[in-house]
């Protein structure tokens, strides 16, 4: 308010040549943005009140009144009476301490669960290494193949004296990470090829790519998963049995591939035509032109929508629940089906949400950093 008055003052411009100390810094910002008029002040105060209430309520529920352990009876069953009494007042984290192994690793044999645990660590290690630009060399492909082979050996077992564990017993976080990692690792190259194919001058290739994208995009992921699990075996010759996880994985790759292909195509289209022409004029062959000139620039342009799609598909892995695979979210549901714990779904879902947020937030944070780094000192 006082600002408007000051503007009318002829001495205003001269006085503002150097801003007085009181007009910069957090106080000035707050005054300009939060308390500039009586109604803005009122809304600010109201929102502060609401936020603080919610925050205190949550802290009280999650920490102050929370119950961390419950007694177990002679049969080793939990006695959740304390939790039942505290319901609505305090969180019952005892369900997590009781069930976390089941949620994270599913029905994998209890004594062998160190194996999926190592796999999760390996997956995360793989992401971290791949994220660092100084490892972006040919050797990275070898690291991927090696790590994924080790993960396969650890999960399946049957060699090196490891007990064999069929996929039916896999579950929890490893399933989610397997679906997401293999899914995106295969879908992304597929998407690049399809996106290039859609711009091909050969009509057959172009038609094939357009059909693939339009067909897959035209149906929901759930129906692709159903088709993979129910219809796909019908087309296979008798005796050939592709397991459920692999079928879901293929369905997932095909689905993600179609969406990513459209994102990549957007990047190809945004690239000025002159770039390809300059490469042609220098005599670069098609694949060199594509790999050295077109893709590095086109993909850089679409980092935000690419990561957006990655995050979406990371979460969509939870849809495999409907074809009977036990991913992280499904294991949460399984844990909740145990009678003593049935009414404590909030606690389980809060923990699951935190796990998903950790992965998704890391992706989003990383992509923003990468974009900044790649654009430093370059055009645009």
């Amino acid at each position, binding site marked *: 308010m006082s600002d408007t008055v000051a503007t009318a003052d002829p001495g205003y411009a001269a006085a503002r040549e150097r801003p007085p100390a009181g007009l910069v810094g957090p106080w000035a910002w707050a005054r300009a943005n939060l308390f500039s008029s009586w109604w803005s002040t009122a809304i600010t105060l109201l929102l502060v009140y609401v936020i603080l209430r919610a925050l205190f309520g949550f802290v009280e529920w999650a920490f102050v009144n929370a119950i961390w352990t419950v007694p177990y009876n002679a049969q080793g069953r939990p006695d959740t009476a304390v939790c039942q009494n505290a319901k609505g007042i305090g969180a019952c984290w005892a369900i997590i301490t009781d069930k976390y192994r089941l949620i994270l690793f599913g029905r994998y044999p209890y004594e062998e669960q160190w194996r999926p645990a190592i796999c999760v660590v390996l997956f995360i290690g793989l992401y971290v290494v791949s994220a660092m630009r100084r490892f972006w060399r040919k050797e990275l492909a070898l690291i991927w193949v090696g790590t994924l082979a080790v993960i396969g050996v650890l999960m399946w077992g049957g060699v090196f004296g490891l007990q064999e564990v069929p996929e039916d017993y896999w579950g929890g976080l490893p399933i989610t990470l397997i679906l997401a990692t293999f899914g995106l690792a295969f879908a992304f190259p597929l998407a690049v090829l399809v996106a290039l194919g859609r711009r091909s001058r050969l009509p057959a290739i172009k038609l094939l790519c357009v059909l693939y994208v339009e067909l897959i995009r035209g149906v929901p992921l759930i129906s692709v998963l159903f088709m993979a699990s129910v219809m796909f075996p019908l087309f296979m010759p008798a005796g050939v049995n592709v397991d459920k996880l692999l079928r879901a994985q293929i369905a997932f790759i095909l689905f993600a591939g179609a969406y990513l292909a459209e994102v990549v195509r957007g990047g190809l289209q945004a690239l*000025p035509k*002159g*770039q390809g*022409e*300059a*490469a*042609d*004029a*220098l*005599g*670069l*062959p098609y694949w*060199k032109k594509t790999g*050295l*000139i077109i893709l*590095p*620039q086109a993909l*850089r342009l679409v980092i935000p929508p690419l990561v957006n799609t990655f995050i979406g598909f990371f979460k969509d892995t939870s849809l495999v629940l409907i074809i009977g695979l036990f991913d992280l979210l499904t294991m949460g549901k399984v844990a909740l089906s145990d009678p003593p714990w049935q009414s404590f779904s909030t606690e389980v879902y809060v923990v699951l949400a935190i796990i998903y947020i950790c992965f998704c937030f890391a992706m989003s944070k990383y992509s923003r950093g990468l974009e900044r780094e790649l654009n430093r*000192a*370059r*055009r*645009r």
Partner: protein
Amino acid sequence: MSQAALADAPIPHKIDANAPPAIVLDKVNKWYGTMHVLRDVTMTVAAQERVVVCGPSGSGKSTMIRCINRLETHQEGRIVVDGTELTDDLRALDTIRREVGMVFQSFNLFPHLTILENCTLAPIWVRKMPKAEAEELAMSYLTRVKIPDQAKKYPGQLSGGQQQRVAIARALCMKPKIMLFDEPTSALDPEMIKEVLDTMIGLAESGMTMVCVTHEMGFARQVADRVVFMDRGEIVESGTPQRMFEDPQTDRLKLFLSQILRGH
């Protein structure tokens, strides 16, 4: 128009009439949909000849020059470059693109590569030159266009004139026999035009075969052996720069010259 270039006398130059021609266009026709953009274009460029192509906007100058290295395909007629006819044969295309360098109006440098990488890319991947050798070659051409000190920078950090000189150096690194220029100075501020034209004049002095679309009449007078005037897809008139500018035969060229002179 560059005043300095205008003042200079034409570069003395002799063309070997017995050498096989560098470029032959024989009744070339091209359509975009139903639009007829090249009409029976016939022209021969001798080895070491310097040809300047001019004409009003939309007359098909870019289309013609882009047909010579097959960035555009023609539908009728014959184009023979350095003894190789341009057809759908990909091997012939590869040969021709190695021999023909091109400089674009909008530079088209690769923004994600350094200046040096821009220049070494094609020698390494097309000519299969070892990296060290390619870098040495690139530095020698960057020195020739007077920007060796910018080699480690990215194109976005250079001025327009510098970028266009890099684009020339990049094309030269392939050691082409023929250079095509499509309005190399028309995207530049006036003070940068001269530095690019001087580079091109240097190139002409070294005996390079050049086909250059430009409206820089000073440059044409000083460098061109022949000026070709195009209008509505046809070659209307051609001759030495002096004859063309001082004694135009057709009304269309007279009109074009009067417009150009008024514009400057």
